[in-house]
């Protein structure tokens, strides 16, 4: 039992140091509200419950009756409304009935653009973000065969659409004439991974671009900007885009500060790309500063008075959606240990206290040096580095709206986006999902050598005699690394007990493992061995 004094220290407000500013006023206001939502400390108080029934009703209402007119702001995100809703069902362990599956498939297919990719609504232009949401919705509701949605995806045109957005620095526009950012890269890479479309041509320069978005704080920003040469800027060219010779590797500053959403997109993209590294990099590989990323991520978790929720940037407010964008990064960090053929080294401190051992030089452990003496497997990286129970408390005590649906923070209303990302974050905090070399070996044993079924650009890979082999090796690695995630049941820790249990979700795709396996097996033409720890 907690004495009042300990409790008052534990729930101490953030220090203002006698210098209040806009930031500290907003923080204090939020803490005052959240303090009413901290876990009751009275003895015998019942554990928090996830009100699954209320959330289901909220989601069903949105799906069947529709979204109120304030969702006009999401009119260009219609596949997202479907994905947020359907994936919330999947996490809540609920499947969709055949009638609504048909209606969903029909709607998603009406969003496919005649020139490839999917748009935010019928007649809207193709865009990388709705393309991810549409394909993931089809992964949940669709199937192979006529009218099943999967085989109606035009992958050849989608690949050409992707290539049309590619920039010289390895990044992608999110749509024609639109902005560059790492959300688009994440959406593109997940889509290409699920649909068997990853090629060295598609991802040339992309890993370097992602690495360049990491800021001095450790998290990632939206984008980065290569400089023009000085002589070029003194006589401005009328051409809106620089010619390749003017792109410099340095300086390439990040645009915007470290941010939870962009950090998830960058890290998940990095994890999705890593199986390609041995195939696309001969000597020097790009690297990211893993220890600094870890430090930043752990500091994004709020204090006790903030009920352990995550914020998305330094000195900003906690928000339920960062339960996934920040909390969801911890399992991804585990993947950086498992890809054996990579030189990213994660370092642990001595004495088993689990504190990351920052390299003594101030250099990053991932700077490309071998550093084998320091290399160790990081056990229970997520247990040690963020409080999974505290995050569950935030979502259960502060994230649930009493009338159903989940939210940013009280007293806000719920919405479709926050409902999914609170549930995904809760799921990630409940389950310990990690890549397994054993599972990967099993998958590889069953691999049937093949070439791509119908899509993309085998014609463009014209300077290799043995295209088929190269292609097959890449596909095998992409497939097996993406599907080797398993759940360690002994590592699950569910606040409120098994009534609150959710399905686990894939740390990269944010689909369940079954949905990820089903759609990938179809497009890669593979049959998977049975999975003991299926989620």
């Amino acid at each position, binding site marked *: 039992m907690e004495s009042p004094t300990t409790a008052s220290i*534990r729930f101490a407000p953030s*220090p*203002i*140091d*006698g*210098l209040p*500013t806009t*930031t500290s006023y907003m923080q204090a206001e939020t803490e005052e509200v959240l303090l009413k939502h901290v876990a009751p400390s009275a003895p015998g108080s019942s554990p928090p419950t996830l009100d699954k029934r209320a959330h289901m009703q909220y989601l069903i209402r949105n799906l069947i009756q*529709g*979204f109120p*007119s304030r*969702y*006009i*702001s999401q*009119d*260009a995100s*219609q596949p997202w*409304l479907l994905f947020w809703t359907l994936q919330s069902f999947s996490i809540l362990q609920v499947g969709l009935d055949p009638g*609504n599956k048909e209606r969903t498939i*029909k*709607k998603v297919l*009406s969003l496919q653009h005649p020139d490839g990719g999917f*748009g935010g609504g*019928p*007649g809207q*232009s193709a865009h990388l973000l709705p393309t991810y949401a549409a394909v993931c919705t089809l992964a949940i509701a669709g199937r192979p065969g006529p009218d099943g949605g999967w085989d109606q995806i035009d992958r050849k045109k989608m690949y050409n659409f992707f290539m049309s957005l590619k920039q010289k620095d390895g990044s992608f526009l999110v749509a024609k004439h*639109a*902005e560059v950012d790492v959300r688009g890269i994440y959406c593109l890479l997940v889509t290409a991974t699920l649909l068997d479309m990853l090629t060295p041509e598609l991802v040339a320069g992309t890993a370097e671009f992602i690495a360049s978005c990491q800021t*001095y*704080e450790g998290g990632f*920003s*939206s984008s980065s900007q290569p*400089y*023009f040469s000085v002589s070029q*800027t003194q006589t401005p060219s009328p051409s*809106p885009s620089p010619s390749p010779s003017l792109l410099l590797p*340095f*300086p390439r*500053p*990040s*645009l*915007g*500060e470290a941010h939870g959403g962009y950090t998830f997109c960058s890290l998940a993209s990095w994890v999705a790309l890593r199986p390609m590294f041995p195939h696309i990099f001969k000597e020097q590989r790009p690297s990211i500063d893993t220890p*600094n990323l870890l430090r930043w991520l*752990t500091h994004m978790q709020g204090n006790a008075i903030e009920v352990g929720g995550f914020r998305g*940037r*330094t*000195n900003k407010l906690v928000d339920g959606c960062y339960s996934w964008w920040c909390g969801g990064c911890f399992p991804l960090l585990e993947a950086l240990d498992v890809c054996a053929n990579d030189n990213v080294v994660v370092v642990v*401190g*001595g*004495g088993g*206290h*689990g504190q990351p051992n920052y390299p*003594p*030089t*101030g*250099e990053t452990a991932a700077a490309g040096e071998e550093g084998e003496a320091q290399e160790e497997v990081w056990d229970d990286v997520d247990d040690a580095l*963020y*409080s999974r129970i*505290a995050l569950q408390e935030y979502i259960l005590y502060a994230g649930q709206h009493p009338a159903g649906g989940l939210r940013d923070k009280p007293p806000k209303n719920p919405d479709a986006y926050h409902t999914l990302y609170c549930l995904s974050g809760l799921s990630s905090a409940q389950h310990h999902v990690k890549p397994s070399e054993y599972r990967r070996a099993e998958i590889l044993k069953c691999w049937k050598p093949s070439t791509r079924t119908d899509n993309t650009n085998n014609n463009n890979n014209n300077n290799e005699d043995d295209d088929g082999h190269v292609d097959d090796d890449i596909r095998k690695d992409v497939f097996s690394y993406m599907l080797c995630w398993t759940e360690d049941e002994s590592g699950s820790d569910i606040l409120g007990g098994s009534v609150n249990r959710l399905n686990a979700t894939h740390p990269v795709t944010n689909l369940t493992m079954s949905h990820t396996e089903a759609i990938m097996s179809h497009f890669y033409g593979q049959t998977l061995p049975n999975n003991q720890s299926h989620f």
Partner: protein
Amino acid sequence: MEPTLEPLLFADRPHWADVIPQAQYEDGDPVAPIFYTEEYKDATDYFRGIVKIGEQSQRVLELTESIIRQNPAHYTAWQYRYETLLAINAPLDVELRLMDELAIKFMKTYQVWHHRQLLVVLTRKPQAELAFITRALSGEDQKNYHTWSYRQWLLSYFNDEEELWSGELDFVDEMLTRDVRNNSAWHHRFFVVWASGVREGEEDRERIVRRELIYVKQNISFAPNNFAAWNYLRGMLTHLKMPFSTVIDFVKLYTVPFDPSRTDIVDLENPPPSKQAHLPCVHAIEFLADIHEREGGQSGIEQAVELWRQLVKEDTMRKP
């Protein structure tokens, strides 16, 4: 402002009578529909009609503006508007003035900032743009992500020392004087001083290092529990490959409780915490632990572990 004499709906406007509006869904009963207002449905029906025939004309600007005002995230309307502006050779300065209003009104929307970017690439008048951004960031939302990253894009794309870069440090200082906890401003300072190469007038790096150390230490002393400022200090040392122990004397001042017997001295190298500071400061303890750990050896590690034990008491969320 829009002329208000026009009927509300495009369906009621005589000069739109020749366009055939296109309903969104052939199937009248899609799953997960949005309940559109009549005005939005009307405008988007006419937009689909226009896109279908590929018309690019002055009235397309009227139509896309209507959609954008109702849903600024309608990226297809923005895209079509941009192509139309180019096709009809519309005056881009006029467009930018309209965007001045929309950018402030819909500040959190990606498209309002990106559209400006497309225009400025063509008009090549970055200086006026920098002034507009300053105005936008002086309003209620001083941490707007799009606005800050747009400023950074503008600086690096046009890369003009005299017209653009020369005022940036003063700007950052102004923003941090308003709110020393604004991490967007700290990031901008890092962008300007360290991440963008050596700027004109900053070639004497020793002087710059000294200047920045004094700047960040002073700001930490005003409000020590400010994660943003500590991150700047760590970031610059790491960037310069300077050992963290360079600042050990400064950091130590913040790892102990306030000393009431302290006499006030002005020490730019090691400014002490303000009298109202909440001490000890967790960020300082973490920093000192990292110094000891990097120094290594048995005594270094032991001291680090001791500090981590202290951190557990001060910071209950992160357990070393």
